């Protein structure tokens, strides 16, 4: 078979494979990892046995959807026992494990993530697809302002940069000012950080260094950890502050780096369907969603991760399928990237509410600062949403003047009314990694 390589894709064959062939390959790989998990992990065997399921039951594509999903709690239940600390979820001898990472523990006990060296190569391979699609090349000097700790965050991004030939500058334990000075000194061309930190660095640059971030040399920024880079108004703020192109990507400790925005920036993310089976399922019924523009929850299988396999893992990320992209990849498109998490999308006053929609409104109004906070509480039997915002010192309007426009846009976007609180600029919490701007106090 003759195939042309253009250098546009990390893997020009897999990324442009016709859908039918892609699906055939995915089915084979799904069955292989399913057998592996069942045969090597007591955790998977326990879950499948309890559901009366065995890998041989998967005979056709549609049978995939009957495989029990894996929850974060399943890992938690299997771990913290011998072989310490991975317990029954581990599928290889402990001496084969070379990498330890863990989830942040935001929703409970952290999940421990073991990887063999091969799994770790696979992690950086999945990131290489991402970086290449976003135009990172061996001419880039990439600054990574990340704490290099137990969280996987940009570890794989670091290794993948090396793999594709970039020069990597580890921003480690430097503070924000020192990081900015190092970016300036070394003339770094690219950066990786959460949207929150990208905006915070730009703010520090102005306040402390007395210069605009766009006057530095960074022209490409990869974001992760929060949906911001797929929120048009947040992306615009970051791109204007840095004079750089900002790209989104999505990944998780238990899964890998599974989706990315390409150079065409089609307003969404491509799931990497060569390495992952990415399903969108109905929030209530769990039935697969194939049509565009319908919200669902993402369930993911990593085909080639073996120490602690990820088979039909319930990511709790919410998105929807979009139309095709002009980049030439046959991978589908998740329109608008990740819209939020199931645990954050909640009913308020009987209306389905996503905090990301509020971010889009606040950051779309140039009079407001980057920070905001949302608190849902109860007054008697009535839900109350409080939105705390900061006016920029140079906003040129009073709270009374801007409030009606803010309320109008919020109502248009979310069909809900808000109690607006104006706070002095700089007084709302600032975050260095992932922000926690949404608080639901109704059940506390």
């Amino acid at each position, binding site marked *: 078979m*003759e*195939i042309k390589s253009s250098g546009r894709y990390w893997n020009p*064959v897999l990324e442009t494979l016709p859908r039918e062939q892609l699906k055939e*390959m995915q089915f*084979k790989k799904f069955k292989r990892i399913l057998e592996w998990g069942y045969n090597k992990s007591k955790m998977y065997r326990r879950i499948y046995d309890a559901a009366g399921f065995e890998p041989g039951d998967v005979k056709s594509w549609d049978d995939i959807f009957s495989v029990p999903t894996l929850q974060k709690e399943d890992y938690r239940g299997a771990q913290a026992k011998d072989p310490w600390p991975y317990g029954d979820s581990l599928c290889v001898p402990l001496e084969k494990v070379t990498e330890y990472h863990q989830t942040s523990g935001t929703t409970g006990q952290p999940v421990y993530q073991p990887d063999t060296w091969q799994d770790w190569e696979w992690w950086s391979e999945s990131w290489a697809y991402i970086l290449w699609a976003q135009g990172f090349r061996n001419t880039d000097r990439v600054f990574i302002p990340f704490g290099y700790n137990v969280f996987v965050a940009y570890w794989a991004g670091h290794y993948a940069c090396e793999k594709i030939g970039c020069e990597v500058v580890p921003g480690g334990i430097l503070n924000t000012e020192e990081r900015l000075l190092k970016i300036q000194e070394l003339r770094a061309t690219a950066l990786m950080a959460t949207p929150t930190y990208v905006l915070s660095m730009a703010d520090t640059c102005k306040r402390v260094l007395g210069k605009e971030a766009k006057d530095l040399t960074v022209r490409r920024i990869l974001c992760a950890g929060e949906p911001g880079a797929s929120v048009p108004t947040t992306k615009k703020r970051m791109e204007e502050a840095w004079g750089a192109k900002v790209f989104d990507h999505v990944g998780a400790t238990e899964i890998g780096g599974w989706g990315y925005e390409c150079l065409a920036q089609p307003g969404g993310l491509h799931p990497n369907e060569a390495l992952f089976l990415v399903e969108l399922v109905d929030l209530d019924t769990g039935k697969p969603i194939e049509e565009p523009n319908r919200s669902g929850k993402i369930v993911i299988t990593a085909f080639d991760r073996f120490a602690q396999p990820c088979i039909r893992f319930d990511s709790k990320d919410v998105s929807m399928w979009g139309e095709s992209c002009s980049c030439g990849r046959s991978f589908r498109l998740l329109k608008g990237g990740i819209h939020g998490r199931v645990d954050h999308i909640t009913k308020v006053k009987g209306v389905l509410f996503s905090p990301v929609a509020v971010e889009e409104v606040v950051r779309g109004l140039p009079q407001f600062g980057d920070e905001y906070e949302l608190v849902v509480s109860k007054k008697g039997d009535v839900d109350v949403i409080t939105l705390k915002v900061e006016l920029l010192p140079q906003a040129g309007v009073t709270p009374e003047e801007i409030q009606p426009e803010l309320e109008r846009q919020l109502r248009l976007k979310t069909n809900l009314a808000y109690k607006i609180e104006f706070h002095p600029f700089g007084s709302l919490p600032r975050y260095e990694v992932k922000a926690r701007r949404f608080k639901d106090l109704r059940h506390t």
Partner: protein
Amino acid sequence: MLSAEIDLKEMDCLIKEIKAKTERLVEISGGMQCVDRNCDRILASLKMLEINVCDLQDILE
């Protein structure tokens, strides 16, 4: 960017040859850690080549 034709079949054969030779190296290393551990890394990289090239063979043939 350069444009070139890709011969997946030839690449598949070469990857399998390199894998077989690497595994042979481990067999005859006598437990030399400097050989075994570096071979382990080569095999991990070869797995990435299998994912990117060899796993496609059945589908494309």
